[in-house]
């Protein structure tokens, strides 16, 4: 279908905002490493990840644009904090700790790829077309971060310990990536956000554990509590405010101005 049923419009808007907001914030965090990567290749890698994620966010905001009658820029920079739908894990600063940056990437890239693969089968055709392209691009991110998880895990005691600490730090909040947006179940039933037979959380947990174990690392993940309220419902960490203040600084000088 090319048009959404009226009653599913708002849930679809929330879902697309969740996808785009995750990508925009993660891309912004990735760009923190430009010029500061631990080696040249990773400086380029994190700068490329930032470019990819922000470009992905842009194309999703453009899909949203006609549904909400706002431009992509207005959506990216012009909302109040409670209108963002990103998960809290993408808001956290990594403190320029390479292990934290890699661990966050690990949780988020795998989740993003699974979500995009599901959306590439959406009955909403404009979304399915874009999602299948994005899923293919996201595969490169997954390959990249998996290689680093194994490399650091097998590196030496120091690299393994640091990565283990970072995984332990983020694993309690990472499952909140799966917090549903309001009325998500209706999108699933309607075929707009089709789910594979294996439930997505378990698919995610299995692949993460497989890779972590390959690197000799321990990883425990539990599904989010049913009633937990997080970023998908507009409840954010204190870090999102400072992130937005920095990211939107120029836009807020004169919203809507042509560049």
């Amino acid at each position, binding site marked *: 279908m090319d048009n959404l049923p009226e009653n599913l419009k708002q849930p679809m808007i929330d879902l697309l905002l969740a996808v785009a907001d995750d990508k925009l914030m993660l891309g912004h965090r990735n760009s923190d490493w430009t010029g500061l990567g631990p080696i040249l*290749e990773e400086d*380029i*890698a994190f*700068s*490329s*990840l930032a*470019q*990819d994620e*922000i*470009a*992905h966010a*842009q*194309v999703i905001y453009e899909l949203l644009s006609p549904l909400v009658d706002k431009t992509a820029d207005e959506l990216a920079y012009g909302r109040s904090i409670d209108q963002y739908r990103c998960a809290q894990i993408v808001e956290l600063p990594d403190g320029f700790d390479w292990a934290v940056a890699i661990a966050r990437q690990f949780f988020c890239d*795998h989740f993003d790829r*699974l979500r995009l693969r599901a959306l*590439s089968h959406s009955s909403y*055709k404009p979304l399915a*077309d*874009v999602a*299948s*392209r*994005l*899923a*293919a*691009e996201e*595969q*490169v991110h*997954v*390959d*990249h971060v*998996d*290689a680093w*998880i*194994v490399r650091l895990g097998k590196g030496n005691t120091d690299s393994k310990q640091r990565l283990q600490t970072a995984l332990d730090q983020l694993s309690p909040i990472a499952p909140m990536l799966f917090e549903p947006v309001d009325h998500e179940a209706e999108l699933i039933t309607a075929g707009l956000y089709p789910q594979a037979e294996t439930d997505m959380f378990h*698919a995610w947990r*299995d*692949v993460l554990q*497989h*890779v972590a174990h*390959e690197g000799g690392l321990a990883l425990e993940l539990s599904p989010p509590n049913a009633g937990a309220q997080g970023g998908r419902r507009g409840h954010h960490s204190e870090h999102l405010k400072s992130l937005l203040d920095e990211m939107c600084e120029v836009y807020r000088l004169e919203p809507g101005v042509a560049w």
Partner: protein
Amino acid sequence: MIDTESIMDVLREIPDPEMPISIVDLGLVEDVRIETNGDSAVVSIDILPTFVGCPALPMIENEIRTKVGAVEGVGEVSVQFIYDPPWSVDRISDDGRRSLAAHGVTVPEHGSKLDVPGHGSTVELRTSAIACPFCNSNETRLDSQFGPTRCRMIYYCESCKNSFEHMKRV
């Protein structure tokens, strides 16, 4: 008289801003439609982006508007970016592949799948033999999955000690 082929000839002269080949050889041009309206024709062109939101897209669109718009009898040019069918490296022509190789950029073999296989182990870096474009050796290894543009990665040839670029398999 304007026909599709004459428009394609113009498009063949437009290089990709980030690749040493034309946008036609790169497989970006999906469709050209011409509607004649009295003396002037309306030309609409469907373009498939390589990477989503590629920063070269606005440049490509401008080039097309300028060059096609300059053809006698063309009144209006519209450019649409579409995702169906998806672009893939399979769309790069043989001429395009040869030209890229001459510039030190290799392209995955035909038949690469867009839909990547399930979530099996992806821990191995992809080091399947990619022949060096300079010396043809298979003694090459992946150096970095990210390169000078979003669509390319960096390989290193152990035989001739040159780096070269390889287009991502999407």
